[in-house]
């Protein structure tokens, strides 16, 4: 029996390296055409207490492609919480309607609370600024698909490193695979010191840089770009100046070397120039598409459709 059956997927902190391998290799199998119909006769609840496009649609696509059925809501206005029902009671009710539930909620820890009251597996599709484990799974799967390995890669992580949950989770995951990392950000959005201390304790090799060009000597395998959010800056002019320095163009790729692959969790605003889209270096749309087989794999594993 799979160690994933009936398991809640809440936080990367609960996952072992072996667990990550299981998800990545199963996603590869799904993409190669295996495990068809792994959600046949399964009903999945899709409970989005805050708006989402990619995550919700790719989960729902994953269910349908695997032969399951999906129901739920796409914004909290459609839920009974508007009538004053507690979050826990909503979950206790829905748990009787489905075989697994996918939850996104703006409150940090909401998915953990849901997993404590639900009798079916709960998958966290994002809880506030805390965790979004399936984003990390699909990032890892995309890297594995591109390089044929996860170990000993050189990864640049760029953008809002202070607040970005995606980059924190990816940093944690890649540290398990002996990655060499460079963190590229404006001074005001640097990687939090507790994460850097953790990396030092684990003996992970990393450095920090102000611009992607500063890492041109590293022969990066991956440059993972994230959005710099306008709302983090009090002064619009300051934002404009900072954002300009964090725009990936063909020239950036020339500086980093043709081997580099550009990833982005999307949506992008203008941090990657459109001229990059047509280069073989751009894999961010493949990355977004990989959300489907990755979530098919995960749903199949937790519902027992994939053993």
């Amino acid at each position, binding site marked *: 029996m799979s160690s994933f059956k009936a398991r809640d997927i809440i*936080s990367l*902190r609960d996952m072992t390296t072996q667990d990550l391998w299981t998800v990545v290799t199963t996603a590869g199998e799904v993409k190669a055409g295996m495990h068809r119909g792994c959600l046949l006769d399964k009903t999945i609840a899709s409970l989005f207490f805050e708006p989402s496009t990619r995550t919700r649609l790719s989960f729902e696509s994953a269910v349908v492609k695997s032969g399951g059925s999906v129901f739920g809501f796409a914004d909290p206005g459609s839920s009974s919480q508007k009538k004053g029902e507690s979050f*826990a009671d909503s979950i206790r009710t829905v748990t009787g309607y489905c075989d697994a539930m996918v939850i996104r909620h703006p409150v940090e*820890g*909401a998915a953990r609370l849901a997993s404590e009251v639900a009798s079916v597996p709960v998958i966290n599709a994002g*809880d506030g600024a805390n965790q979004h484990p399936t984003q990390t799974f699909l990032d890892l799967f995309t890297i594995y698909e591109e390089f044929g390995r996860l170990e000993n890669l050189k990864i640049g992580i760029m953008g809002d490193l202070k607040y970005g949950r995606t980059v924190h989770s990816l940093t944690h995951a890649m540290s398990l695979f002996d990655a060499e990392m460079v963190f590229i950000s404006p001074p005001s959005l640097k990687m939090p010191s507790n994460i850097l201390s953790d990396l030092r304790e684990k003996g992970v090799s990393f450095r920090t840089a102000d611009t992607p060009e500063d890492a041109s000597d590293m022969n990066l395998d991956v440059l993972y770009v994230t959005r710099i959010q306008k709302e983090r800056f009090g002064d619009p002019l300051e934002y404009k100046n900072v954002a300009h320095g964090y725009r990936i163009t063909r020239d950036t790729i020339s500086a980093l070397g043709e081997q580099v692959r550009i990833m982005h969790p999307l949506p992008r605003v203008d941090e990657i120039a459109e001229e990059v889209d047509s280069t073989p270096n751009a894999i961010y749309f493949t990355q977004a598409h990989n959300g489907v087989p990755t979530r098919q794999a995960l749903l199949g594993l937790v519902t027992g459709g994939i053993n």
Partner: protein
Amino acid sequence: MERAYKVYAINNGTVIDHIPTPLALKVVEILGLGNEGIFTIGVGFQSKRLPGGKDILKIENRILLESETDTIALIAPDATINIIKDGRVSEKRIISIPQSIFGVMQCPNPNCATNKLGAHRHFELEDKNTMTYRCQYCERVTEIIPENLTAPE
């Protein structure tokens, strides 16, 4: 000559000494003693160990559980705890900071499920040296802040 006690002796119960002044009332709060039996508090005694002074708390007819006395270590790691039976010290209890904290510590993250959705407060020790704990819901790491310690849920 008989010693004059400023906080009178008890025959049965728990005596907590070497609480840094003025945290005795905070200890009363986190133990949830408000409406339970008799306790006496002495505040601001001179102490060689605690330059800022010490408080003493005597709880009559109640032997605190180890889980309760370990909670005291969060704000008074040097507290000494004596269990009194029939007027004698029957146990000198060593306290250590707890691995888990349930109920008594409020998460400092206002957007945490414990503050927004009614999840029960639960922290696990993250680092004994820095006395930091990780909230089991929002996963933020926090130091012990006496103001965030409250009566048990």
